[in-house]
């Protein structure tokens, strides 16, 4: 599963994207954030307040309780500030 990070999530994680293989117990976007947060200090910092982080699966916004099964690409980013 490909994971992408943007804005300060990207800066804190220290990379723009990577491929991860979470265990089957990681079912939702929330689970994935909790699992990623345990991958080290940088991830812990990036995901320390998961409620402010937005997620998208395959280019569509999703809620944090969305099941990730079948996702090709999951992205994490702060609230958007374009326009």
């Amino acid at each position, binding site marked *: 599963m490909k994971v992408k990070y943007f*804005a300060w999530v990207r800066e804190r994680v220290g990379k723009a994207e990577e491929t991860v293989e979470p265990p089957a117990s990681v079912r939702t976007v929330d689970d994935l954030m909790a699992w990623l947060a345990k991958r080290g200090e940088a991830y812990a910092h990036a995901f320390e307040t998961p409620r402010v982080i937005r997620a*998208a699966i395959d*280019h569509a916004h999703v809620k944090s309780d969305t099941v990730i099964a079948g996702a090709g690409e999951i992205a994490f980013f702060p*609230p*958007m*500030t374009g*326009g």
Partner: protein
Amino acid sequence: MPVPVTIRIQQADFDIAREIAALTAGRTDIGAVVSFSGICRGSEKGEIIAALTLEHYPGMAEAEILRHAETAMSRWPLTGLTVVHRVGRIIPGENIVLVLTASAHRQAAFQAAEFLMDYLKTNAPFWKREESAAGTSWVEAHDHDDAAAARWTKP
């Protein structure tokens, strides 16, 4: 006649006159064109801004803008619609974003342009980083932008 929809994400500046000409050339069914240009300001809350850097999520940004463009076309009788969003480093006074809407009637053009801007602000995956004397920092999202977007979903 098909509705021309143009969506571009680019580093380069845009030329409003050229974009309007592309939307209206050869047509006589357009009575109203509304353009919105978002411009980089030189200060925010009293702090001098040296520049903004715009980051986006390639692929999703285009898809999200197209999704809202299609919603706008289904809600208002538009004859054309253009969105250009710049990315990269932008200095005060430079353009950030352009929304153009064309319609037979002015209310449709105004409302669709406002709708698109409200949704670009809150739903399109772009992020601004500010450079100031204090260093660089990510711009925080505004509650009033969420409120502006929410008014389009009221009954």
